[in-house]
């Protein structure tokens, strides 16, 4: 199972990198979203996949699953939700202001206002 997950994470990272290297801003944002999904999956895998019962009181199981990675992932998901939303707003504004979503055309020297 871990190997399968690792492969999956690798594929997600690969696609995210591919998307982030493209010229369109929207694709880049989708790429960052995909990247954070990959990261969360990695966190889940590294924390150990399901090894026992749900970590609740009164289960009386022999082994419990570690709840911490899920708590961490939840936090990370909320944060990446916020950042993606902000990124979309910034991208939209700059599309309006600069008139393009092509990174090639957005390029310029730092100072030339």
């Amino acid at each position, binding site marked *: 199972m871990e190997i399968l997950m690792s492969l999956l994470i690798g594929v997600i990272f690969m696609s995210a990198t591919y998307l982030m290297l493209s010229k369109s801003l929207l694709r880049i944002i989708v790429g960052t979203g995909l990247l954070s999904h990959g990261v969360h999956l990695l966190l889940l895998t590294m924390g*150990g996949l399901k090894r026992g019962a749900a970590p609740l009181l009164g289960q009386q199981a022999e082994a419990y699953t570690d709840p911490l990675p899920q708590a961490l992932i939840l936090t990370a998901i909320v944060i990446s939700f916020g950042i993606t939303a902000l990124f979309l707003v910034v991208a939209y*504004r700059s599309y309006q202001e600069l008139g393009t979503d092509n990174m090639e055309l957005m390029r*310029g020297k730092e100072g030339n206002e």
Partner: protein
Amino acid sequence: MNSLITLPLLIPLFTAIILVFFNKNVTVQRWIATIGSLLTLAAAVWLSATVYTQGIQTMDLSNWQAPFGITLVSDMLSSILVVTTSLIGFVCLLYSFRSIGVEREKHYYYPVFFFLILGVNGAFTTGDIFNMFVFFEVMLMASYVLLVLGGTKIQLRETIKYLLVNVISSGLFVIAVAYLYSVVGTLNMAHISVRLNELGQSGIVTVIAVLFLIVFGIKGAIFPLYFWLPGAYYAPPAPIMALFGALLTKVGVYSITRTYTLFFTQDIGYTHGLLEILSIITIIIGVIGAIAYFDVKKIIIYNIIVAVGVILFGVATFTTESLTGSVFYLIHDMIIKAALFLLIGIMIKITGTSNLREMGGLINRYPGLAWTYFVAALALAGIPPLSGFLGKILIVRAGIDAGNYWGSGVVLLSSLLVLFSVMKIFMNGFWGKAREYKQQEKVPVRWLLTAPVILTICAVLYGLGSEALYPIISTAAETLSNPEIYIKAVLKE
């Protein structure tokens, strides 16, 4: 009273929240912001006095015991960094009142400002590696908004790059935490240190160490990862630039210092050797940039990179003396960088350009500005009685003691070239023939000048009083070089 440790976090948070409700009324906002900022500063000073007299302060959030829940830890280093942050926040706020513009003030400039302070103070105070990530994100989120606020073309373009770089580095941060968690099974920083020491030297730990170096290196702008910094810091107006330059990179530097003294002390030859090489190259790159550009903003921005290199060189040498030097230099650099950014902000406001070739003769009309700049520039370069001197001399001496003549030589030479680069601004900007600028009448600079003057006075006092401050700083370095103190305080063994 243990809840003291939360005050430097809670006061900015509540100030920010209250400020949102008054976004239309600029005067009220300014008053609330001033009061909130002063309270933060007072709480921070009180906290660090408490830490100095009573030792490390900790708080286990929501009563979960130390290795299980999130712990806030305030040792000497983090408490004096919180003091410095609050001071710089207050001063930048004073400067903002007259320079940031009503438009930005109405668009939630002050709330976001306080969220930034919250994030920075939080990152310094937390004792939990994942909580550090959360505070990093709070800080970064605020910095994105501050960077884009105003919405000019250059700001939008730079914000996109800055956002993308930081999203990737945040992703890497979580990956690094995930790897670390799978190895040690804990997130409490003191507990991680214990577990890693039990584990001894192993390849995977070194990999994690390098991964953390990459993550914090992106935030702190060390050699191969500094590329985003000159562009991103160029875009926003002066007070925001000062905040970013003084605080954001230093959070990265602090994190490297913390992790490389607390966690990764097993394979020093490799990890700290790598850090040393990178820091020396960082210094060289920064100096080249600072000398090569004829743009005041660029010169100071590249000086940030030099300072990051110098501090990390001290960390990499990893003796008590060099760590003392690094802490000294870290505080000095935060104060003086903020002062310099604010000063060149005034220069740009007067001349309407940041190109040094189009400036000149400012000393006749603005002698106060010129001499403040002169003192700040000397302090940056570390001319003896001023603040940069002691930190640098300790770092260099420790480097020589450790047998690293090359690195120490580079640090020494860099001071000279840093002096050259900032004096270039003085000679071209303040001396020479006065030029005609767009605004013919004298720009009122008195209010704007108070902010950098306060910081410069702090820097001078910091330099002159370094004898008196030495016990505080050496306590901080002591905790760094001897993690046992930190671990004992947190885990209460």
